[in-house]
């Protein structure tokens, strides 16, 4: 009986801790990445962006995604990979209007993806 209660209590603690950590961690990661995308987008809008800027953002994303793989479906991560690669290619070609459009999509992903993992009614159902 005591062992059962202890087991349940520890499992609840573990799950709650993991849930809180996941929400905060995913929020923080996408918030920081969103900031980097914002800076790159401003340079693209001013037509000042260099391929090295895009490459720096990609390297930062590569570091983040290796830990994000544990917490969120890999399809979400793949989506960011694809769009970021397209944006980097367009910046290298100095096609700034299209690159800006791609970066706008990434801004939207950074705003919406963390929200899809919060315990909200629309997410539960």
């Amino acid at each position, binding site marked *: 009986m005591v062992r*059962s*209660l202890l*087991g*349940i209590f520890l*499992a*609840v603690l*573990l*799950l709650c801790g*993991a849930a809180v950590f996941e929400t905060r961690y995913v929020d923080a990661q996408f918030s920081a990445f969103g900031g980097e995308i914002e800076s790159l987008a401003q340079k693209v809008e001013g037509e000042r962006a260099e391929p090295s800027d895009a490459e720096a953002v990609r390297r930062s994303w590569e570091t983040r995604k290796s830990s994000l*793989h*544990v*917490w*969120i*479906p*890999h*399809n979400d991560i793949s989506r960011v990979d694809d769009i970021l690669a397209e944006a980097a290619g367009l910046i290298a070609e100095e096609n700034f209007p299209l690159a800006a459009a791609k970066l706008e999509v990434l801004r939207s992903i950074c705003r919406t993806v963390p929200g899809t993992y919060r315990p909200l009614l629309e997410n539960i159902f």
Partner: protein
Amino acid sequence: MTLVIIRTAIIFFTLLLLMRLMGKRQIGEMQPFELVITLLIAELICIPMADTSIPLLYGVVSVVTIFILHGLVMLADLKLKPLKSLISGKPSLVINKNGIDDYQLKKNNLDVTDLIGSLRAAGYFSLDGVNYALYESNGTFSALPREDYEAAQDSLPLVIIDNGCFDEKNLAVAGLSRPFFEDVLRRQGVKTHKRVLVMTADGTGKIYLQIKGEKYRTFRVSYPGGRTW
């Protein structure tokens, strides 16, 4: 391919640990909530095991959640008696000294044929061979035989009337006709076969008859042409 193998191994060991913590009941006779848990675990495990786009953590978290729910329901089942019948159900006494309790059968979505099948599986071939019979809350069937139940079982009884309807197949097996049994019923004071809950006949001429809402009765008849089986 390697990914699926490694993920499957991790899930397998997690599941094994949780099953050991849950105890032998999970692999023995199950209460309804235990069956739900067993089915759920199988479903929850399959998806992250085979789909590498889903984090393995999702499968582990689901199973740990099931473990917590199982623990809470088990505690409620053991400690809170009013909740016990809600969670696990209650045994249903389907045969008593008056015969078959049709209300209990219907409550459990069973009929006389199911009951007779359960009796046979338990080793009792006559409805009057047992004093009491129950369906337990985990679905198993148990019966208390009469002291002389072996003497009561000397031929295979066939169901002739089941809930007001003649069983044509068994009539053909017995080689007897509807008019014969309608005459038997009239002599017992039963005007129509539709009032009969169950009527069985064995090869020696023993009839078990229970009218709806009444106690059962047994009596002997002689079959035409000296028929037996």
